[in-house]
């Protein structure tokens, strides 16, 4: 069970946020011993329209990945150039110990020009020596200053290409970031059960010519790219049938039986990606295979 304490203020300096967090941590420890515990800094860039989804995805995640989470809400068209902040400290009981841990969430609404230099804002709030994960909701503004800046302070960029339009073209822009920062794609993670299942069809699958995927466009392209790159056959054709989730795969007209087990919950998928620290060469090769 978690207990949450919060503070909020408009037009703040970042020092105000740090001071408020220190005070909240003290309050959280007033009744029972608490430890501030972090395994990473988790930044999420959340454009207008994604706020509730972003907050929902965090539900339960802080419990699995104690971290400092910084949610950035850009409002570049606002008339002023200020930062509004909300800081929250959550205290989680560690079962059977009588002790608790505290995790921190900072929500910053960046008005006007403040939305143009986000790295200078988050740099002051990063937890030293721990990895930084950047979750970007929607399609990143390829080449824009805010993306370039945040990628510069990030160890791993997490996107969900299911949220993008005009696939597969944006994958080319994503691939341009590979040399600078490791990337995770939630859409790719959601194909893992099917990839493991398709791998069991080796070696019969080696000569496949057409793959038909009933799922999102992202899942279809990524599965096709994966087969092309792993099997060394760039000519494998994709037939895509739109569906909200990955429901079926056929190889040369033959339906593949459903893989065993249940699909993972959304928070589990994100959580698993937060446990990866190095580039995923198999994903990168799959992305490159659909853009070439």
């Amino acid at each position, binding site marked *: 069970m978690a207990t949450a304490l919060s503070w909020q203020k408009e037009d703040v300096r970042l020092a105000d946020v740090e001071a408020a967090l220190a005070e909240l941590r003290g309050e959280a420890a007033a009744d029972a011993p608490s430890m501030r*515990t972090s395994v990473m800094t988790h930044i999420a860039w959340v454009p207008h329209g994604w706020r509730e989804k972003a907050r929902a995805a965090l539900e339960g995640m802080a419990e699995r990945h*104690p971290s400092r989470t910084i949610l950035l809400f850009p409002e570049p068209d606002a008339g002023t150039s200020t930062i509004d902040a909300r800081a929250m400290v959550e205290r989680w009981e560690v079962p059977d110990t009588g*002790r608790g*841990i505290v995790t921190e969430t900072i929500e910053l609404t960046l008005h006007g020009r403040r939305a143009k230099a986000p790295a200078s804002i988050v740099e002051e709030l990063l937890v030293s020596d721990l990895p930084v994960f950047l979750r970007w909701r929607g399609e990143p503004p390829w080449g824009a200053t805010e993306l370039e800046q945040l990628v510069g302070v990030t160890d791993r960029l997490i996107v969900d290409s299911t949220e993008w339009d005009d696939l597969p073209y944006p994958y080319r822009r994503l691939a341009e970031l590979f040399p600078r920062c490791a990337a995770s794609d939630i859409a790719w993670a959601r194909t893992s059960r099917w990839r493991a299942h*398709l*791998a069991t069809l*080796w070696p019969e699958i080696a000569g496949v010519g057409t793959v038909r995927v009933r799922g999102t466009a992202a899942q279809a392209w990524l599965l096709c790219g994966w087969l092309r790159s792993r099997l060394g056959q760039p000519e494998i054709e994709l037939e895509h049938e739109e569906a909200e989730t990955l429901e079926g795969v056929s190889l040369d007209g033959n339906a593949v039986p459903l893989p*065993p087990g249940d699909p993972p919950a959304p928070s589990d998928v994100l959580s698993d990606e937060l446990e990866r620290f190095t580039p995923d060469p198999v994903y990168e090769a799959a992305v490159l295979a659909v853009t070439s």
Partner: protein
Amino acid sequence: MTETAPAQQEENPLADGLALRRTPDPCALVIFGASGDLTHKKLMPALYALAVRRLLPEHFAIVGVARTDGDDATFRKDMQGAVQQHARDPFRQDVWDELAAQLHWVTTDFADTGGEDTLHKLIEKLDEEEQLGGNRVFYLAVPPPAFPTIVDALGKRKDEKGWTRLVVEKPFGHDLESAKQLTAKLLEYFSEDEIFRIDHYLGKETVQNMLALRFANGIFEPIWNRQFVDHVQITVAESIGIEGRAGYYEQAGAVRDIFQNHLLQLLALTAMEPPIEFTADAVHNEKVKVLRALHTPGPKSVVRGQYGRGFVEGEEVAAYREEEGVAPDSMTETYVAAKLYVDNWRWADTPFYVRMGKRLARRETTIAIQFKRAPHPPFEETASEGLRPNVLLVHVQPDEGVSLAIGAKVPGQGMTIRTVHMDFLYGGAFRTGMPDAYERLILDAMLGDSTLFTRTDEVEEQWTLVDAIVAGWERDRPAFPNYPAGSWGPPSADDLLHRDGRSWRRH
């Protein structure tokens, strides 16, 4: 799809980058002693946890074997109750239904050959129906006297189909001689790499974390030696009594119940050299070097005790000799403390103080590395009177984690220094739930990975030390009971350290 003959010769390129699921080959798990406590409290809850995580093989069967009358239906019902009562995961009907369908029961005591036949026929049938490939894990969750009969029965039926693994619960023998006899019996039919001797402490995450702590961090290993370490204290304390196991405990005592296995394994992991790789043989080789280097302690370096009446959690509890099934003049020890030395280059002259016992003040298993004091603190003596030496404390259970005691300045005018703790709490940093030791060990046995099991030579070295200690005890008769239940053991255990100018850690 077209046939691609050359591709069949290659490794599967689609397997690259996929998460390595440690899923074993199809197999039958045969549990001897399936009506016992271990099966109810540990084995079946562990199997259920593995089923929840889909870590069991798709083609799988569990056969419960015991003398108790029963059938598949009663076994399934009984095990459902065990899972609902003891599993760490919430009960899921869909997972249970799938697992329950794989449960089978055989009643036999192996005294008659008919029992062997029934079991053998069932396994053969399951092999065929469930495509188990002839792979078998035999789990001996039975008292040691039953081992030879079962091993003979299994060995005579052993065939070349698939693989066979034999999991043996402790105690592995009663002394060196009986351990050797048991090994010889097992080796009549099974090879060493088919024998898995369980010491469930090795399946605990925190015990494995000792290897991570030492060998994945550059800062500890350079100071993990006699130059910097003053001494090591290992405590395996239980607040419970013998819990109705008088028959076993009267024979075993603390030295055979805990010291011979759990405690010496913890010591070996603490003192061992870095293995060249994390494989079973490499780890066993380093552990056995430590066990061989253990200096046999003289009589004055070993203290034994037995609890009298006392209070635990505010409740008055009986003396050991008043427990049901215990002889009123029993001389069985419920507590052992010892000063041990590891005679090698790294640890020469560095004492390892170990203690273990029942009905102690609280349940706690810890490994404390106490470092030497700072050679010349430039502060006034009064400023640092509250300062204790640095201690790296590994909490094996409960409060799993690691603490480092350091000196810190008390805020305010002047310079006053006190000891504070920097804590890493497992449940705080990794909130994914700690798997039970048996989950890990059952899965490892099915996978054929014996890294976290004990090898013959380790067991024999452990018994060599225990035999030497017990031989010394035959010459004297201490005045038992000598410590009240709910205390930290007999006063002579404190004297053991006081003689060296040291004391047991404060709790």
